[in-house]
């Protein structure tokens, strides 16, 4: 009656997505200020990843893209 495999997939996917996006954004914030020269570019790259994740979200939301 309940589609348990689907539910488990949803839980795992949500967990990975939510923790993933929080990790990426947090690291971007963390590396945003600091002394080492490499930190800024890496921070911007991570913000870029966040933008891609938002784009993926919009892709998933808008039915016309499927």
């Amino acid at each position: 009656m309940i589609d348990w495999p689907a539910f488990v997939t949803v839980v795992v996917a949500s967990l990975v997505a939510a923790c993933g996006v929080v990790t990426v954004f947090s690291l971007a914030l963390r590396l945003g200020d600091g002394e080492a020269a490499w930190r800024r570019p890496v921070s911007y790259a991570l913000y870029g990843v966040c933008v891609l994740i938002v784009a993926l979200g919009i892709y998933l939301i808008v039915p016309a893209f499927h």
Partner: protein
Amino acid sequence: MDLTLLVVLVIGLALLFDFTNGFHDTANAMATPIATGALKPRVAVGIAAILNLVGAFLSTEVARTISGGLIREGDGGVQITPVLILAGLIGAIVWNLLTWLLGLPSSSSHALFGGLIGAAIVGFGFGAIDGGVLVSKILIPAVLAPVTAMGISFLATKVAYALVRKGQRDGFKRGQIFTSSLVSLAHGTNDAQKTMGVITLTLIAAGFLDTDAHPPFWVIAACALAIAAGTYAGGWRIIKTLGKDLTSDIEPAQGFAAEASTTATILSSSYLGFALSTTQVASGSVIGTGLGRKGAKVKWGTAGKIAIGWLITIPAAGTLAALAALLAKVEPWGVWVDVVVALLVIGGIYLWSRRNRVSHRTFHQPQPGQFVKPKKKPKKAKKPKKPKKPKKSHKPQKPKHKNKNKKKG
């Protein structure tokens, strides 16, 4: 009663329901950014309204059944008449307004399903209801949704606090705007579609549209505008419950973690085929983030009230709709009495709500809408080596710091 007039009444009530759906669900997306001060209250509801409007136009899939399989509709089942839809809508609207008055974030879809079930039971008896679908699509997910979201949000909050130092955490406000916007957009594509389905199926049942017809443009536009207007009106009571009363002092990092969890859970649930209610997911996320930060308190009394609200949404909306459906059976004037009583009740609830108003002014924000700049840490001895632009003001400060450190050492 004249069929055309009846259809007009149903459309009017459906749009009214769409409006209540909008303001009931603003909180799902915008409660946490308002609570943390990431967005000014009016700006937040404005963004949510626009995204709901856009979302409503983007959704192309039309509901084929009014009740999502809860009522045995169509071939071999019952034919839900416009009168029953009208009664169901009255039950759903009144229940949505009552829960709003109490500040309870309850699912508008459940209210609609409950209303239709109540009306269908009066029309056709209990046999019209598919109990299996009720359990597997409504009751069990109602437990799974908040629990899942709570766990995910708890972990996401832990991650955010582990990775980001205190002074940088206001940066999460920027992230909150995006996660909340995604929730709003998803809401627009999902929820406006339900009302479009109700109106389209009513028009089909009345013979104004062919079977399998797509909703006409005016239906899409009207539903989009109704849900956007409702969203802009802002169910401030529910925003207050979700943003302030459920978990004390939500911080930007928590808000971001909670909204990210809500977005991830809703999107994956709708694309991996296990539907979960947005309202329940959002409430679970807020509780989870309260558990995830040391020093934050979850108010379990409020959580309990919300849970009771979820539990009785379907029976309560069903009972209200059943009463309306019974009254509607009285032939010449029943439907009119229904509509008049419903409007009186709606007006009464509105007047009652004015006794203690909750509006955007309720949300005190020390610096509304502005990103609070992270506090600068005291400069370390190394830092002054770096700056390329030689500033005069910097140089005299250097020795001061060093001296201080030396004295302490």
